[in-house]
């Protein structure tokens, strides 16, 4: 190699120049910053990716790079193709051995995940990203777009934004200012204005009965919901039936007038998961509202 370069001064000069001119060289180092503030450098865009968070799995696939995934966590279930990939445990209990055995170029993990340090010590590159809000989602989208060297990731983001805006515009005026309660689990824990789906609801013109300052998923006194008497209740299939049986809840206007949107687990994933399927989430709510508004025939 050295003698070859010695014999081709012109080539060597060009090679040197190429190091100084980013964009000209073929092997530009690629670096991205993750949510820990760590800067990770790659010689080329990672080809073998492990994702241990469903929303990150969805983001990689929405960027059109699903084929680069070689393994996912057990909760990643969308799009359907990822269900055929090796399951590597959950974010809190990943199988470190199985992850390492796949020889990934990068592992995408949540900030709250376990095993980050172990993987790093084993020489695996770990990119920590945790989308929780719309702003996070955009940041994660752009970071992953840069890492995977997806052309026009910012442009695709713009068009997804436009889709969400279109659904919001299609929302009937009757929905504006309607007071809504989104129960995420029967604690009861609610999704407040600060949560991802809370932001989505606000975008559609609804007014959340749970304000942002209580944190994204506060545990409420059920009496609060009864007194707030929301106009619309959004709830998962699992707890929908039990709502009416709760002490005092049968008096709720939304329950009396059946103004309840009940979601299947798959639909709840779309609503709750901070993933690029925001327009679909908005459409789910729009469809439910349209069904409720339709006069009974």
């Amino acid at each position, binding site marked *: 190699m050295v003698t070859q370069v010695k014999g081709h001064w012109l080539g060597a000069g060009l090679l040197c120049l190429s190091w100084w001119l980013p964009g000209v060289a073929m092997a530009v180092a690629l670096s991205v910053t993750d949510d820990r503030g760590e800067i990770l450098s790659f010689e080329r865009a990672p080809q073998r990716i492990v994702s241990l968070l469903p929303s990150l799995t969805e983001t990689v696939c929405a960027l059109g790079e699903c084929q680069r995934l070689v393994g996912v966590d057990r909760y990643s279930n969308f799009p359907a193709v990822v269900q055929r990939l090796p399951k590597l445990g959950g974010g809190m209990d990943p199988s470190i051995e199985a992850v390492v055995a796949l020889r990934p170029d990068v592992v995408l993990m949540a900030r709250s995940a376990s095993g980050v340090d172990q993987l790093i010590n084993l020489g695996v590159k770990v990119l920590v990203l945790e989308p929780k809000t719309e702003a996070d989602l955009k940041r994660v989208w752009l970071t992953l777009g840069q890492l995977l060297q997806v052309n026009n990731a910012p442009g695709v983001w713009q068009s997804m934004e436009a889709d969400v805006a279109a659904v919001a515009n299609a929302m009937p005026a009757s929905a504006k200012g309607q007071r809504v309660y989104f129960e995420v*689990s029967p604690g009861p824990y609610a999704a407040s204005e600060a949560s991802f789906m809370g932001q989505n609801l606000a975008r559609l013109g609804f007014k959340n009965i749970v304000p942002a300052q209580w944190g994204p998923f506060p*545990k409420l006194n059920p*009496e*609060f919901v009864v*007194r707030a008497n929301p106009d619309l209740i959004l709830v998962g299939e699992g707890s929908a039936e039990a709502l009416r049986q*709760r*002490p*005092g809840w049968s008096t709720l206007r939304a329950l009396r007038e059946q103004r309840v949107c009940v979601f299947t*687990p798959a639909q709840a994933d779309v609503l709750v998961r901070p993933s690029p399927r925001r327009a679909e989430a908005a459409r789910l709510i729009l469809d439910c509202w349209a069904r409720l508004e339709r006069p009974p025939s």
Partner: protein
Amino acid sequence: MKAFLIKLSLIKFSLGWRWLLIGLCLVIGLVLIGLCVGSAGFETGLVDPRIVWEIRLPRTLGAWAAGALLGLAGALAQGLFRNPLADPYLLGSASGASLGVALALAAVGVRQAHFWFHLGLTGAAFVGALSAVWLTLVLSRGVAQTLRLLLSGVVVGVVLGAATQGVLWVAPESLQTLQAFILGSTAFVGWSAVWMMLGVGLPCIAVAVLLSKFLDGLSLGDDTAMSLGLRVVPLRWTLLAVLALCTATAVSQTGLIAFVGLAAPHLVRALVKTTHRLGLVLSSLAGGILLLAADILARGLIAPQELPVGILTAVLGGLYLLWLMHQGAMRLETGS
């Protein structure tokens, strides 16, 4: 001398009854406070009567009843095993009850508030609790050796707790419901749960009080109890069944709430020296007061958000037991 002893026992007797009266007043006071504490914190003004009647009153009475059941179970356990550390949790009965509920929930799925659903859950919890106590007793080969008994209880508790986690793992769709249950919650206690707990609790306390002479005899040892003509084996099993039923009913309605069963009998013993008859009643009263106070705090401290009540009972009960231990150590040091 004899007259003096009789007088002394009379004083103690009346002291116990005085505490019973104080306890009852405390319960009434706490119930009244409970009616005023809701999602807006403490409020004295006019509140929609339906909120008070349908939410606050059953929740308040339910918290008291669940605490009373746990307090009674704790007093029974400590009397039956002549051990101040015996508690529905340390004997494995609470973890058995929760495994029963977990299996029932995994089988039925959705949590409903029907009376029959509550009855079914209570049944499952009772079978679980009784099996767990039986398992503990088999492992410890009877109740003769305290250390063996407590160790068996801890082992059974851990293994059944792991089994509950296993049920969660197999049926993750019941995770949310079960999680609320494992944390312990009084948030959704309605009238059906109250009737269930009172319906079980009152006969239980009646049976326990009727058989309290047996516990008095037992405190002198099995042999002495037998020589007093008490039929130790069947009586012990009867009271064990009452213990399991009390624990199971409380656990099936409010989930796992720690420390009430352990702390309530200690609180009573620290206040008054009395026979088991009054001790059992006072313990259930104290257990109810403890849990009701914790529930009021859970509702009121960060209203309209809520703290999990199980965390508060663990903190309150744990701190109290620590203080009691500290006091005991002080007393030993000063030699009094």
